[in-house]
């Protein structure tokens, strides 16, 4: 089965700092060679600490930020602002996004109805029809249209606003929905309701989700596949059960061990991640995780580990994996004493 969405070698470097003449002095490698694909009807969770480039990836996919490099294709059709590629406008009809800040992502001057009906009207739906659709969608996301259509965003709770944002994204009738920390700002109880709503909507409309979050429990709950990012790169990816039960990359292991388990007696005393992620302006050489990795050896700081298959579709970028072409070299080296 071919992938619905395929992303290859996506890159974005941001210039930062200014010298005397206002020229950039450094670049942040926000997203550095990210590749993945998602099959129709599945949910890909993207996890990582803040600043790892997961939100930038989402914005690059929507072309809200122009990628420096990389290919984005849906059903084999490549999109982009380069001649020979399909127009971004078409991409945005097939892919929509829900943002983290439910308040900032709704225009405070527009009613709920106007906000939802805005997108379809851009795509040529008549105002009357768009309003009718908006009411239908409000019902679908669990808000009584008779109560809410004329309301303004500040009159709604965070959970209600996020439902509106979901309705707004669905109004364009996309195939793929990007959820960028969409439930992260909500209370736990509201979070669960919105997650269930997302599952229901996915079934009803046959949607495909890209679910971006720093919350590993939430990602485990909703995702079919998971991709772990660290400093702009993918360190591990695979089906959710395999990855959660058998994390291959030391970073993933550290991340997972820092999550309190649901059952107290299963809580293990693992080495927890120490320190902050290094500065993305000057990322470490070799494997970007090596300064925080308890298993780091000389090769880790000199060479980038290849993405290697762990088992089935589960893969990771680490020299410790037996299948890694440089695994032998790693084994031969002494462990760097901390």
């Amino acid at each position, binding site marked *: 089965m071919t992938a619905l969405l395929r992303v290859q070698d996506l890159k974005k470097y941001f210039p930062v700092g200014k010298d005397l003449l206002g020229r950039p002095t450094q670049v942040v490698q926000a997203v550095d060679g990210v590749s993945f694909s998602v099959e129709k009807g599945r949910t890909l969770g993207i996890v990582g600490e803040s600043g790892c480039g997961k939100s930038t990836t989402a914005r690059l996919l929507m072309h809200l930020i122009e990628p420096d490099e990389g290919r984005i294709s849906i059903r084999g059709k490549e999109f982009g602002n380069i001649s020979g590629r399909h127009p971004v406008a078409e991409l945005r009809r097939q892919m929509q996004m829900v943002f983290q800040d439910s308040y900032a992502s709704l225009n405070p001057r527009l009613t709920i109805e106007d906000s939802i009906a805005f*997108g379809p009207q*851009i795509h040529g739906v008549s105002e009357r029809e768009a309003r009718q659709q908006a009411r239908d969608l409000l019902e679908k996301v669990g808000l009584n249209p008779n109560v809410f259509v*004329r*309301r*303004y965003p500040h009159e709604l709770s965070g959970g209600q606003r996020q439902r509106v944002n979901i309705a*707004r994204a669905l*109004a364009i009738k996309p195939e793929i929905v990007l959820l960028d920390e969409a439930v992260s700002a909500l*209370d736990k109880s509201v979070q669960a309701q919105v997650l269930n709503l997302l599952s229901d909507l996915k079934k009803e409309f046959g949607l495909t989700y890209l679910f971006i979050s720093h919350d590993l429990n939430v990602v485990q709950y909703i995702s079919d596949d998971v991709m772990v990012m660290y400093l702009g790169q993918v360190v591990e990816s695979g089906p959710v059960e395999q990855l959660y039960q058998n994390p291959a990359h030391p970073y993933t292991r550290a991340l997972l061990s820092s999550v309190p388990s649901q059952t107290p007696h299963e809580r293990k005393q693992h080495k927890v991640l120490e320190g902050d992620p290094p500065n993305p302006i000057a990322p470490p050489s070799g494997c970007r995780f090596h300064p925080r990795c308890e298993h780091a050896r000389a090769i880790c700081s000199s060479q980038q580990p290849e993405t290697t298959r762990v088992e089935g579709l589960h893969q990771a970028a680490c020299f410790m994996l037996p299948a890694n072409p440089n695994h032998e070299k790693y084994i031969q080296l002494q462990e760097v004493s901390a």
Partner: protein
Amino acid sequence: MTTIASTTSKEKFALAAETAAVSRGYWTTVWTRLVRDPVSVGCAVVLLLMVLIAVFAPLLAPYDPSQGTMLKRLSPIGTEGHWLGTDELGRDMLSRLMHGGQMSLMMGLLPVFIAFAIGTSLGLIAGFFGGWINSLIMRTTDVFFAFPAVLLAIAISGALGAGFINAIISLTLVFIPPIARVAESVTTSVRNLDFVEAARASGAGNFTIIRVHVLGNVLGPVFIYATSLVSVCMILAAGLSFLGLGVRPPTPEWGLMLNTLRQSIYIQPWISVLPGLMIFITSLCFNLLSDGLRSAMDIKR
């Protein structure tokens, strides 16, 4: 943890708002708040009266503002038939003050109005598109910021020469840069909000995004700022006339009246005070009303 805590309090507020049940638009709320402020209402009434008197001056004024007899020149305040006295050419002060409002109010409002239209457009374009367009527009306004407002107005008026139109042009030029700067900074902050990104993600073009999503959020703050400039403009405009750079005599205008009556302060000091008093009251009312509007529009989420 902090994000959760703040969300909860936001949530509480939203729930409270929900129980209010009546759903109102932003401007309706602002209006309700404004009319509850006695100072703002008072100032608005005074200003409205002034405008009405100025507009209907030809009907209301007891005398022709440009006809006077030298026999009755500089009659004191309280003179029978001329209860605000007469000026240095024997013209009725009350009639001249009523007619003078036409020019003075126009010169206070029109430049700010034109500058609001032009400055907002420039700031909107600069803020929304950023990059070199922003640099071009904002660096140009920086140059005009290098002049104190009064100096710039007088310099341009001085170079263009006296006259109503020239005064309007120079005052407009003075107010475009500050308005553009405010509009630019507001637009820049609005442009970075998620709902603009969301609109872009729905496939909307720049023009539609500006019209539907940016303009409505930018106009309010810039409008408040512009109202605070009206008072400055009133004072500056009358100042230009006071220097002989505004309207030409015998047109009644408060600044010009102040200028000509200045020669008579040793004979009838209090009559020469009257036109300035009018400028002061108008400017004060505009300032207070602008403050009232600002706090009425400052609605916490």
